[in-house]
């Protein structure tokens, strides 16, 4: 059935409803017309059924030139016209006579058909709109649940995020050496490690945090890596003091900085630099991590941390926040997080 879809919605219920309206209408009209009830009922049913079928088809036709509602009203007019002719045929009337001598009768049938049809259609469309609104509401609800779920998942991942053993042991090996050769430097490195761990260990993490705290954590991490990587890593932090008290989601900046070291500067054998910048403009706080490292190769993995950040940004700020990655010139990557700025 290739065109079966055109009749979608033409349910028994609809047929019964139309029949009922026709019966009621014929019964009501008996008082005003000379015709018999049965005669009126045949006219009403012809007009009603024809309109109903055309209305259903008009609602299902796949086209985009006209609005569906307009098509349906047009279908009612056409249905009333065709239905009136059909009634004439059913009753065995002479069609030419119908449109000459008995034109007034025909006009009344058609007019009533159109009038009642439009009232019924208006009711139907209102009900449909109501159903659509309801569906939209349910969809919004479902979307909200989905967001809540992804927020919880992202939060769980955040709580589970751990300090990499590789990082920890390598750092301690450096401290071990410095203790013997340069105790002051060993002290500084231990302090950086303590700062980093205090922020990075889940149970020590607070739910709200400021940009300043996130920057401090990133700085501790970068200090450690600068010692470890010797001359291969250089970094700069260019963040105005007045932005440091701004709220900023936790553990996002450090993820970007870790990526910049791990996937950017470290894989290159030459030296690279990392710069953190923050700026506020038009009510938006933008924090960027620039690296001059290896850059991204099209088939390289490593988007998991980024996907996590995106999920969390979406859960926190909807479409008002974003994470954007761009190529840095002449090499490397710029990763930026933009959130609505609040004081």
């Amino acid at each position, binding site marked *: 059935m290739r065109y079966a*879809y055109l009749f979608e919605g033409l349910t028994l219920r609809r047929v019964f409803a139309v029949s009922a309206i026709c019966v009621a209408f014929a019964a009501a009209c008996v008082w005003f017309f000379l015709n018999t009830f049965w005669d009126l009922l045949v006219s009403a049913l012809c007009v009603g059924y024809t309109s109903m079928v055309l209305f259903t088809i008009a609602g299902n036709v*796949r086209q985009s030139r006209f609005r569906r509602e307009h098509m349906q009203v047009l279908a009612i007019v056409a249905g009333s016209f065709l239905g009136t002719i059909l009634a004439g045929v059913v009753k065995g009337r002479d069609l030419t006579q119908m449109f000459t001598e008995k034109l007034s009768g025909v006009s009344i049938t058609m007019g009533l058909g159109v009038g009642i049809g439009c009232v019924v259609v208006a009711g139907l469309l209102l009900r449909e709109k109501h159903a659509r609104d309801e569906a939209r509401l349910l969809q919004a609800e479902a979307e909200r649940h989905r967001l809540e779920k992804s927020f919880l998942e992202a939060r769980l991942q955040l709580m589970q995020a751990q300090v990499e*053993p*590789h990082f*920890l*042991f*390598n750092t*301690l*090996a*450096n*401290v*071990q*050496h*410095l203790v*013997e*050769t340069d105790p002051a430097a060993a002290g500084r490195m231990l302090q950086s490690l303590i700062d980093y761990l205090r922020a990075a260990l889940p149970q020590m993490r607070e739910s709200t945090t400021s940009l300043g705290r996130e920057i401090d954590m990133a700085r501790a991490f970068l200090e450690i890596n600068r*010692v*470890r*990587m*010797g*001359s*291969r890593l250089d970094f700069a932090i260019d963040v105005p003091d007045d932005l440091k008290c701004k709220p900023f989601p936790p553990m996002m900046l450090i993820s970007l900085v870790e990526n910049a070291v791990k996937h950017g500067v*470290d*894989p*290159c*054998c030459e030296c690279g630099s990392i710069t953190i910048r923050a700026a506020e403009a038009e009510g938006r706080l933008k924090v960027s991590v620039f690296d001059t490292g290896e850059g*991204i*190769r*099209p*088939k*390289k*993995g*490593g*988007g998991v941390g*980024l*996907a996590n950040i*995106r999920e969390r940004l979406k859960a926190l700020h909807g*479409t008002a926040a*974003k994470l*954007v*990655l*761009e*190529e840095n010139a002449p090499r490397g*990557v710029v990763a930026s997080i933009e959130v609505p700025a609040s004081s």
Partner: protein
Amino acid sequence: MSARVAAVIADDEPLLRAQLRSRLTRLWPGLDVVHEMENGRAIEEVVRAHAPALFFLDIHMPGVNGLEAARIVGKRAHVVFVTAYDQYAVEAFERGAVDYVLKPFNEDRLALTVARLKERLGSRPAQLDDLVDSLVARLAPKSSEHLRWIKASVGPNVRLIPVEEVLFFRSDEKYTRVVTCGGEALIRKPIRELLDELDPQRFWQIHRATIVNVDHIASVRRGLKDQAEITLRDHGETLIVSRAFTHLFKQM
């Protein structure tokens, strides 16, 4: 008077090179660290120039890592791997013939390694290829054979878009539109080429000119003729599935 033993240390962290060197020379006065390397890039030249009997190779190094370097050294020298922490690596070493050192260094453990090495120096270096192969398989970051990032020009910048973010690709005359929740960009790579490079599990061609990310599909419904229409989550545009591709969405 025994002959002196030549060794080379390769580690990307300068302090850890210095530390290993000082500990080794303290434990093994007969050892000469003849060369230090930041990574394995020049390993072949070092083998030829210094002909060392011993290599201490950090597994994690940029450029040419310790495992690749060990493969190049082959049977020309004894290899000791150095690693900070890696469960798999340690497991593999426990089973294999090769020795390893954990960072941070433990003096007693390092002394044991030195004792074993002194014994082994008389014998031929072990064949490491099998061990290296299994380690590479376990440690190497899985680089996917599919496209993971799309590079697209947005104004003067080159935007890097992870493919998971892409809702759909659609050809648009000379270019291909890359549509994401946050906006869209143009690339020059045609649909045909994208199709070869993208993960076919996630990206389905649904039309001559369209590839959709199935993760972002909200619903599919029948459309005009034998086509179907796809609506996406978080995006208003409706996508047409042409007749040739509707079988992808037939009910199971």
